[in-house]
């Protein structure tokens, strides 16, 4: 694969802070595969999922502005964060299909935009354009025998009509990518269930219950590591393991990594800036043991 033009890329706020490891590893992966990511200039917060919770057009001006400015850069915008992806895809869908709302929002943001930008998740790009075959060829340290639990969560998959990512009932893209990188994806039924999301704001108990379900299933499936693309899922599934371990004797902690972290290491990155030391369940012993990182 030849070098392609740099892809306009929206990191989002979380990737500048808590999920900086996702940002850095995503850039590593795409550079290693010959299509570097180019950060969208002057981007703003997409509003996380809040703009979509109430029927208020003013809240959509944030994501709409991102879409309009990305359209000025090109025809596509690559997104790493599952939450940003969800917000941008759904806002785009609304602007594309509802002329009345589009007109009002465009008046607010003082830009012309008709919804013809394509918002794509990095996983879609790897699947559709870069190709798993190319990923396989570029491997330096295959994830040989690593038992991975691909975790999709809600935001990548739902609502399916608007988000259009994989089959919401039986998603496969992340599993296939990890398999292409040499890993052994485990089968478990909770891959598209909610991790608890923002529920903790309301009820820590309910959120914990949701995370626990996923983690128990992952653990029962014998996974070495959980792999996600969502900073909130990563946080919930990682952090709550401390509480679960205190509640349940015999609970076996499982590191939770971003798919780009694992893929970056497999493609030969040194893990610099991946912030692996900030994970609650330390992934480094596992990575060292498997010869994937020296950190």
């Amino acid at each position: 694969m030849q070098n392609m033009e740099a892809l306009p890329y929206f990191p989002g706020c979380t990737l500048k802070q808590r999920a900086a490891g996702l940002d850095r590893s995503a850039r590593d992966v795409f550079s290693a595969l010959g299509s570097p990511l180019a950060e969208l200039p002057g981007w703003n917060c997409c509003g996380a999922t809040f703009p979509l919770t109430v029927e208020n057009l003013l809240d959509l001006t944030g994501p709409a502005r991102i879409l309009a400015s990305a359209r000025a850069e090109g025809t596509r915008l690559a997104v790493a964060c599952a939450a940003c992806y969800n917000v941008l895809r759904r806002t785009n869908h609304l602007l594309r299909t509802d002329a009345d709302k589009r007109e009002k929002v465009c008046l607010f943001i003082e830009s012309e935009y008709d919804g013809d930008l394509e918002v794509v998740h990095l996983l879609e790009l790897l699947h559709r354009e870069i190709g798993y075959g190319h990923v396989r060829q570029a491997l330096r340290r295959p994830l040989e025998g690593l038992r991975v639990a691909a975790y999709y969560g809600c935001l990548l998959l739902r609502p399916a009509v608007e988000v259009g990512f994989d089959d919401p009932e039986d998603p496969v893209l992340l599993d296939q990518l990890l398999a292409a990188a040499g890993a052994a994806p485990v089968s478990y039924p909770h891959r598209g269930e909610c991790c608890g999301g923002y529920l903790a704001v309301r009820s820590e108990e309910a959120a914990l219950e949701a995370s626990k379900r996923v983690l128990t299933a992952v653990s029962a499936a014998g996974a070495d590591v959980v792999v996600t693309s969502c900073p909130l899922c990563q946080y919930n599934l990682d952090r709550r393991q401390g509480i679960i371990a205190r509640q349940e004797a015999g609970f076996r902690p499982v590191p939770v990594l971003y798919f780009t972290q694992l893929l970056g290491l497999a493609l030969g990155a040194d893990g610099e800036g991946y912030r692996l030391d900030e994970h609650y369940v330390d992934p480094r012993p596992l990575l060292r043991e498997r010869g994937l990182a020296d950190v």
Partner: protein
Amino acid sequence: MQMMRPGQTRALIIGAGIAGIQAALDIANSGYEAVLVDRLPSVGGHMAQLSETFPTLDCSQCILTPRTVEVGHHPHIRLYTYSELTGLQGQAGGYTATIRRRAAYVRWDLCTGCGLCQSRCPARVPAEFEGLLGERRAIYTLSPQAVPNKPVIDREHCRYFSTGRCRVCERLCPVGAIDYEQQDEVFEEPVGAVIVATGYQLLPLAALPEYGGGNVPDVIDGLQFERLLSASGPTAGVVRRPSDGRVPGRVVFIQCAGSRDPERGRPYCSKFCCMYTAKHALLYRHRVHDGQAIVFYIDIRAAGKGYEEFVQRAMDEERVLYLRGKVSKVFRQGDQVMVWGTDTLSGRNVEIAADLVVLAPAAVPDPSQAELARILGLTIGEDGFVEVRDAQLAPVDTLRPGVFVAGAAAGPKDIPETVAQASAAAARILSLFSRWERAAQVQVQADGGS
């Protein structure tokens, strides 16, 4: 002078399920000829697979067999099984049908139906008729009650065809009926009118991954459960689950699996599932007295004579637990099947550890129906079923004159409604036939008088 065209008062009926059988018998018993074509080796369609029928719990085979036998022997019925329609030219009163009969590799004119060939065939194949829960051989009939009771060789699985060695059936056959050189036959039949009676299929389990379809072995569909209930089925009527053969102590039934689902393009109700699910739950309780039957439903559509009473009987006498709500997910956990659902009456989410899950998948048109509609020049609706000329006043007429439709080919229907439609379509054709005959007679008289 107006003369009768050859075959003008002969009807072609495509599909030999209960609709095609009923229509063929009505036409043949009126003294006209019927050409009955079915893709499968024998007649009976889905009804032949059913254990018992709602709401009377008649044994399905027992009420069907007299009719299949009659079809097999009727002097006015030309039966072409293992055959398909490949072309239809002409117009009402003067159609020419092209039929392809697949090579059975057995000379049915010689075969006595003794069954010896099947007993020693070394190739074992999951039996389609048994919902893949039982086995058949590469040389097989659909069931012991098959009409015609003549076997076919499934070329794909036959040892001889795949390796060039075997010929066990040939050696065993006492009348020398095995013919490995047999070829497909294509021939024409002149007919005056046509009935499409191609029925339905169940949405494949693999299309329902959220319910574990195609993935969890103990998630089966309604027709598979019929075979488990059937005394002539693979378990001789004992309800055993596919994974380990255990008798399930708790069975969850899920209605509307894939139907009433506009997002997936099947917004329609499949119509007969409420009733067969009630029947399944009831029969399961008859077979497994201490078993628990749980049904998830959206609402219960039991509009028919004795239907509501039947559902009430399942609830009251057999203590079937009906939970109003949908299931969100089914997956395997250990040796159990976990069902996540919601009970909208109590407003709570429920998790049920079941031994077996039976889905009532959407009834969908046969996959070959689109091609058949093209051959026949018929219109197919958005749901894939045959469009009728007027849903109110011409429910068995299609948009093409002389071509009629009966039963589930035009949308899901239960047996009583299907039989009524088949008789209606036959009556429409009989009225055409007698009108054409009368017109010809009048013409002959007029010519004779001049």
